[in-house]
């Protein structure tokens, strides 16, 4: 049987991957302590080989999906013959075993890249990095091999009592909620984020264990952190958009444990991306940064655990899955290793500087971190509250969205404020004059706009604050681009547009960061729009209508299109606006044949200012009439668009800066991460003197250099 040899092939590759990881770990450690370079090298090769072996296992599992071979329990549970190929590929991560394999695969991909790209660099640091990466891989490969093996075959006793393998003729199908294009991209993105944070974690722990001098590990891992952070953010947004488009309850975020689980490491990652600047520029917060990286990694593991084990949502804690205790054990080991590494090397992390003034860049970073950590803690606390309350009081209590909203909306607004203020404050201390020069106009315009909005009837307090702050932040960002570009434009005699381009490419990190900030402003505006959403639910038969906002929705027809994969109930609705026919909408409910599960297909008519969101909620059993649930969700599009801006900004911030490339070519730099001397700046400073001191000061100190 072809199938049975291939599943042996797959599980054998997985077992070899486990052995290779063990070799990379043990061999690497011996190599470090016995100072045997050759052993360290072979351990590194073993670490890289894990990637190839896990890739083989993934490929052979995919082969089973694509050949409709239902002899594997995992394939039979998550696929069926009529499933489109696109989704057969995605079915790999539809269940527990497969998604853990997928975790291992992405992790080994990151580990391979980190080991390969640095194979000739950082000879004292990399062996430790390899050992730590291998340690994490051992945990996940243990799960893959011995706890949740995706290659388990279906077997049953035959009439004479002998156990035989069986091949089912049909699979039970992929959960229809996952049969949506974004569900193919969302888990890989989220998992790329989760696994990606392993690399900064490995470098931070390695630097601490090996007492690697200075801030080098931060320079090395800055891009890795941004990649992981960006993937995680994209994953969260895709998940939110999927929930919005598929679940049909009119929203995109409900503070659900799994949503929260992904948000937590993203928050600490955001805090880390900001506080590293304190360490780079001022030698402060070393302990804090190391612990931020450690926490981010542990929250990634916790997130995987919450997603997989389902401890929080169930009424019976821990009854769901035996995999939970493995994760708890692993988290305990990681925490213990981090604590010991920190305690033994804490002298290595001492700060160089103290906080000089409350009105300074330093203190804005400190508040940023404080507030992000508070948000993280509140979300973590709320998510784990059922578990914690059961341990402490014996009764299981959950908290709902009001808890999360109450805490996080003020935090978000304060963050928005810092986004506007922080980047324009000087290091050490900012004078009152500088404050006035930088903030008077943006703040004035924002307040006037807020007053006008209030007079026009814009009364929701938080939404009004969000509007004022968004305008303020946008203006400060705009003025930063304008000031810098004006200097370049007058010096090089170019127009302002190309000067903006030149300015951005000259300091991609800073201006990319501003673009990320602007994207976040757009996302916040979109979220604030939630305060103005409305919905109507009504039973309508053909010819009847319902009204919402400026729209009248007339029911034209009900039919039931179907194919091999599903049968469907569909409403044909005509949308009128001010009496004029505007569009047709076709909300649907699909009943999937293989799994007998129903899915809602929401009809969304999206415009920049508002979404008309219409759900066919089903047939009311007591009256036999179809129920249509319509929502108007203002500004939701800002969220998705803001997400794209954040991605672009992040990409830009990772782009090498123009000057760096030149410096590198002259080979005066030991590595690209070294601080560029401030002497690269004076070309600008002559004209900068007239145009704004804050600009000059920052360029001179070279403070935003990588």
């Amino acid at each position, binding site marked *: 049987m072809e199938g049975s040899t291939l599943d042996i092939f797959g599980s054998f590759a997985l077992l070899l991957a486990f052995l290779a990881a063990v070799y990379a770990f043990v061999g690497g450690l011996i190599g470090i302590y016995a100072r045997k370079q050759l052993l360290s090298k072979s351990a590194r090769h073993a670490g890289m080989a894990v990637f190839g072996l896990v890739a083989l296992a993934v490929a052979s599992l995919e082969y089973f999906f694509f050949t409709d071979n239902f002899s594997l329990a995992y394939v039979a549970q998550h696929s069926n013959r009529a499933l489109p190929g696109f989704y057969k590929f995605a079915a790999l991560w539809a269940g527990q075993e497969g998604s853990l394999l997928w975790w291992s695969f992405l992790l080994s991909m990151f580990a391979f890249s980190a080991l390969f790209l640095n194979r000739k660099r950082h000879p004292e640091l990399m062996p430790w990095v390899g050992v730590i990466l291998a340690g994490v891989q051992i945990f996940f490969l243990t799960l893959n091999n011995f706890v949740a093996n995706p290659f388990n075959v279906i077997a049953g006793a035959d009439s004479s009592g002998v156990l035989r393998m069986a091949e089912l003729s049909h699979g039970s199908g992929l959960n229809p909620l996952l049969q949506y294009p974004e569900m193919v991209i969302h888990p890989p993105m989220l998992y790329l984020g989760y696994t990606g944070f392993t690399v900064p974690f490995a470098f931070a722990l390695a630097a601490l264990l090996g007492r690697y001098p200075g801030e080098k590990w931060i320079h090395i891992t800055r891009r890795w952190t941004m990649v992981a952070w960006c993937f995680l953010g994209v994953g969260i947004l895709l998940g939110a958009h999927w929930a919005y488009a598929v679940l049909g309850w009119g929203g995109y975020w409900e503070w659900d444990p799994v949503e929260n689980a992904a948000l937590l490491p993203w928050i600490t990652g955001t805090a880390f991306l900001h506080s590293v600047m304190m360490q780079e520029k001022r030698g402060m917060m070393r302990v804090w940064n190391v612990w931020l990286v450690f926490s981010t990694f542990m929250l990634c593991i916790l997130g995987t655990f919450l997603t997989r084990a389902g401890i929080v949502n169930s*009424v019976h804690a821990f009854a769901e899955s035996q995999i939970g205790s493995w994760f708890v054990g692993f988290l305990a080991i990681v925490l213990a290793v981090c604590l010991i590494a920190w305690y033994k090397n804490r002298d290595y992390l001492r700060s160089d500087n103290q906080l000089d003034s409350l009105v300074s860049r330093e*203190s804005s970073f400190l508040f940023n971190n404080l507030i992000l950590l508070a948000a993280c803690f509140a979300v973590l606390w709320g998510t784990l509250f059922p578990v914690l309350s059961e341990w402490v009081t014996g009764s299981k209590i959950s908290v709902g969205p009001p808890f999360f909203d109450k805490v996080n909306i003020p935090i978000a607004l304060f963050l928005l404020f810092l986004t506007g203020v922080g980047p324009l404050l000087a290091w050490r201390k900012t004078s009152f004059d500088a404050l006035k020069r930088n903030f008077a106009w943006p703040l004035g315009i924002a307040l006037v706009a807020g007053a006008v909005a209030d007079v026009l009837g814009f009364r929701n307090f938080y939404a009004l604050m969000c509007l004022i702050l968004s305008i303020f932040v946008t203006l400060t960002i705009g003025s930063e681009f304008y000031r810098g570009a004006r200097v370049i434009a007058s010096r090089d005699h170019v127009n302002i547009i190309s000067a903006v381009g030149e300015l951005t490419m000259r300091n991609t990190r800073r201006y990319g960061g501003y673009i990320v900030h602007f994207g976040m402003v757009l996302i916040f505006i979109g979220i604030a729009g939630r305060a103005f959403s409305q919905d109507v639910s009504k039973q309508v038969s053909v010819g009847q209508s319902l009204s919402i906002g400026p729209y009248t929705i007339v029911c034209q027809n009900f039919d039931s299109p179907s194919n091999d994969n599903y049968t469907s109930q569909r409403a044909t609705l005509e949308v009128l606006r001010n009496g004029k026919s505007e569009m047709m909408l076709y909300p649907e409910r699909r009943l999937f044949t293989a799994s007998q599960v*129903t899915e809602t297909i929401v009809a969304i008519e999206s415009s920049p200012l508002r979404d008309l969101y219409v759900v066919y909620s089903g047939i009311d059993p007591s009256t036999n009439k179809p129920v249509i649930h319509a929502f108007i969700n203002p500004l939701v599009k800002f969220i998705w668009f803001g997400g794209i801006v954040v991605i672009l900004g992040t990409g830009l911030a990772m782009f090498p800066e123009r000057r760096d490339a030149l410096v590198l070519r002259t080979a005066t730099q030991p590595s690209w991460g070294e601080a560029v001397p401030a002497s690269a700046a004076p070309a600008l400073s002559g004209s900068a003197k007239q145009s704004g001191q804050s600009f000059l000061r920052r360029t001179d100190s070279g403070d935003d250099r990588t």
Partner: protein
Amino acid sequence: MKARGKFIIGSGIIIVTLLALAYVGYTQSKTYYHTISELSTLHGAALHQRMRVSGDVMAGSIEHADGHLHFVLEENGKELPVNYVGTDPLPDTFKDGAQALVEGQLTPQGSFVAEQVQAKCASKYQAAPVGSSMAVAGKS
């Protein structure tokens, strides 16, 4: 040291404010989880709390009457009559024998008024799949 002191005071104000907000949010939204057998042991204020109760939908117990829906949850032989007063149509997974989680309050007569009902097919019951699938369980 002066700046440091100010920073600590500022942080203190922020943290106390957030704690107060968290407490208000907590009292507004806390929901207790109970098993059906625990319900008979509750007394005093605990009877009036917002709670979630899970159990299996008793076969043949689902009735539609005057726009409302009545059914009986059972768990280990204990029964709980439920009156669903929510406006959303129930998920299709809600049928005889399904596992259901109801959220609402107990009446003095010992029945349950549910504002939300979530259901999972008993046969398909397994650990949640990838990503926001708990959201699925919560909203489908």
